[in-house]
């Protein structure tokens, strides 16, 4: 009896971003079906797991590192993943998430949660994770192996990167 090859463990993470990169990932359409034949998706926004799992082979990380929770998760990703991919412009450069960087955090929170006319008010500050002084690209928080740019990266580009990795070829975008 031939042995079934071991499936790779894939995780996707949503840090400080808009989830557009994940939407683009879902736009892989039929390729998603082929993908799940080769990988187990062990963690992600749609996977009901709270804790980042161990022994992940490939991890796609969307979003900048903008608060302490992101930073903690990023470190956990690094220590449990073989290959970390900066997935999309926010992870690669900070992008839109980092546009707040020129404004001091205190002024930012005051403007958004105290002064703005919004359904969410100052009470939410008690539960929100503390913002870092600056939103950072992922590689300034942890070591990153591959950079997958785009806002969001086109499904074709995601497919090119993933299929190259699954076939053990170098990723050339």
């Amino acid at each position, binding site marked *: 009896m031939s042995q079934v090859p071991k499936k790779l463990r894939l995780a996707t993470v949503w840090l400080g971003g808009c989830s557009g990169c994940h939407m683009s990932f879902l736009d892989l359409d039929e390729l998603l079906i082929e993908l799940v034949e080769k990988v187990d998706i062990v963690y992600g926004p749609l996977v009901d797991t709270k804790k980042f799992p161990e022994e992940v082979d490939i991890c796609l990380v969307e979003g900048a590192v903008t608060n302490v929770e992101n930073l903690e998760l990023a470190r956990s990703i690094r220590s449990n993943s073989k290959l970390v991919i*900066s997935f999309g*412009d926010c992870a*690669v*450069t*900070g*992008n*839109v998430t*980092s*546009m707040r*960087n*020129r404004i001091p955090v205190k002024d930012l929170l005051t403007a958004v949660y105290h002064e703005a006319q919004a359904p969410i008010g100052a009470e939410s500050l008690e539960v929100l994770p503390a913002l870092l002084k*600056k939103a950072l*690209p992922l*590689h*300034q928080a942890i070591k*990153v192996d591959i*950079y997958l*740019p785009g*806002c969001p990266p086109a499904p074709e580009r995601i497919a090119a990167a993933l299929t190259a990795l699954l076939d053990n070829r170098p990723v050339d*975008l």
Partner: protein
Amino acid sequence: MPVITLTIDEELVSARAGQSILEACRDHEIKIPTLCHLDGLSARGGCRLCLVAVAGSPRLLPACTTAVQENMVVTTSNEKIERYRRMILELTFAERNHTCAVCVSNENCELQTLAAELGMDHVRYDYLNPDLPLDTSHERYGVDHNRCLLCLRCVRVCDEVEGAHTWDVKGRGIKSQVITDLNRPWGASESCTECGKCVEVCPTGALFTKGSAVAEMKKEASFLRRILDGREKRQWRR
């Protein structure tokens, strides 16, 4: 004009005396990346992307402002030069706020294209995130200093081709900024002829036509060669 012989990338080539290394390379279809350089404008040597190695020189030299010399030995690409070029691009991206995803020139930007071509896939330096303004006081055009890399093509085209010299530079070093007239809002400029040459030659989204949304600003600098050929050589073509 006397012809001289030099070696570029281990090939013996001829060039005219007075030509720059960049011009000689382009005549022989040797590709050197450039950013501040634009055919038709004076050479500036500002962006440093065209750095090449010249035997006998202890440091790399910009190909656009270094004249060819008899028996010169030039190397246009090696591991060190490529590394320096990527580093220069990274520093350029880190210095201002080049947020491609929300830029009018996304996908039509010379800086972005060069980064892709030279394999610069991330910036290792801390982003400075400066707090820079936008001037949209002009009726037709706007300037976004966040995207400006101080190539000064706008300054040169306005002075050398249009003859208006509306654009200039204020400040020094990292505080430098392009200005219109004596640092008045563009819309209040008395010297600006509204010709739009500066917008067309700008390599990024720093100068743009008002009303352009993300990725809509497409520029075309080829008009420059056409009008200069008409002016200098009396050659008129479409």
